[in-house]
């Protein structure tokens, strides 16, 4: 992508040796428009996950439920077990969950890979920046900070996994005890703040991303175009409201682990 001021006649500009055709997907992905498709589709997968994840987490507000066998357990922990047992007995335990996780991991990886590729293209497209201040008309904070909000979300994601999935940064982490882990982790004020910041970044990212994916996928129809913005605002607001409520609820004491309330409290086996 370098342009020089050549003089002399211009001709035969559209006469090119036919490029060797790669398989459809790779062919599309090698172009910027194709990368935007990948951004949109992987973003959509991510959005689906984030919404499901939030709905699942809302179960923490249901507190303790009594199961049919009389055992009392936190509803969110039952939900966690349900996820692990998805598609059982068709598939062994956790197989489908891992399948879904792999899809998600691939989506995140592709999303980041495409983003890096596009960023590099776009940097080259204006190698010399404007020397005076720009006065943007439409481009908003969200659209211009996608790289930053995306990076924050990525870092937050790693932290979140290390915290509540692997437990590297949560000394008292107990595998499978979601309610307990959430309470333990978010009771730490700095961690709670981190979750709030991470989710606000995610909301800003979605505000532009969700609107943008309709454009990138070419989903454009005068009948629903006005809705694209509403959907973006709605989903961003939903995610932020839901996810930010968790640390707030923990700090406010609404969500607090009570070993006495459940049949099998954490640490039971150790006693």
């Amino acid at each position: 992508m370098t342009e020089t001021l050549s003089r002399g006649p211009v001709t035969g500009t559209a006469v090119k040796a036919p490029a060797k055709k790669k398989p459809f997907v790779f062919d599309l992905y090698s172009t910027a428009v194709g990368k935007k498709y990948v951004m949109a589709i992987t973003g959509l997968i991510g959005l689906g996950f984030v919404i499901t994840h939030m709905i699942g987490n809302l179960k923490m507000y249901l507190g303790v439920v009594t199961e049919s066998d009389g055992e009392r357990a936190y509803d969110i922990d039952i939900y966690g077990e349900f996820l692990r047992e998805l598609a059982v007995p068709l598939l062994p335990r956790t197989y489908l969950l891992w399948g879904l996780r792999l899809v998600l991991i691939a989506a995140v990886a592709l999303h980041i890979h495409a983003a890096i590729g596009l960023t590099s293209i776009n940097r080259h497209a204006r190698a010399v920046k404007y020397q005076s201040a720009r006065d943007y008309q439409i481009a908003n904070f969200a659209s211009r900070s996608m790289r930053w909000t995306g990076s924050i979300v990525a870092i937050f994601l790693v932290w979140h996994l290390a915290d509540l999935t692997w437990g590297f940064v949560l000394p008292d982490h107990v595998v499978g005890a979601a309610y307990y882990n959430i309470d333990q982790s978010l009771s730490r004020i700095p961690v709670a703040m981190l979750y709030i910041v991470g989710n606000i970044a995610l909301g800003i990212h979605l505000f532009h991303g969700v609107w943008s994916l309709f454009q990138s996928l070419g989903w454009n129809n005068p009948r629903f175009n006005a809705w694209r913005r509403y959907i973006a605002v709605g989903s961003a607001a939903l995610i932020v409201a839901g996810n930010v409520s968790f640390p707030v609820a923990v700090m406010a004491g609404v969500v607090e682990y009570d070993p006495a309330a459940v049949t099998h409290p954490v640490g039971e086996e150790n006693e």
Partner: protein
Amino acid sequence: MSHTLTNITLKIWRQDGPDGQGRFETHQIPQISDEASFLEMLDILNERLIEEGREAIVFDHDCREGICGTCSLMIDGQAHGPQQGAATCQLHMRTFSSGDEIVIEPWRATAFPIIKDLMVSRAPLDRIVESGGFITAPTGGAPDANLIPIPKPVSDAAMDNAACIGCGACVAACPNGAASLFTSAKLTHLNLLPQGQAERYKRAEAMVETMEDHFGSCTNHGECSSACPKEISIDAIAIMNTDYRKSKTKNRRALSRR
């Protein structure tokens, strides 16, 4: 009725040639009528510079009625200046006030190298059209014009996109230096019309790929449409994206029929 603006300060980018080191140069306009167009103000400044024995500021302009697309200029950080839906040549001084400082910069994109001062080369836009921005209809032998009725809304939508003047403001305004609006406007114009169907996907593939040889990618900021003197909607970009994706399969299928 006309008024006179006073004490306008211009900060104008000067650059001796494509490889020259550029710099901002400050000029004062003590008095100017608000009936004057922005470019007429530059004309007056240039005449003064020549009379003082200095070189006139080079800028591209021609029709001065907003249709030829020759004029450019980044004025106060906006392509074609602060007036919506107008090219620089349609900008009048009544948009400004006495005492304003106005910063004028050439359009910047790797695909638009600076020729001199405020003038840039926009040749890659021509390359995009050359690669497929046409309907192959050699002279003579065209069927009667009324043979194919075209629904008025379709014709009007094609016209909305055909209104593009090829000024390159979309590229200049885009934070990514993308030419998606330019390319998609031409594609949408031709792809909506019945005459354009035979080459629809060939055109989409060729034009998008030529575009990508020179320009950045669309990240849906919408700056292009806001800077566009003809207010072409970014809906065109969505149409382009669809047609490009389809082209990847349809063109293969068409080839396989041979």
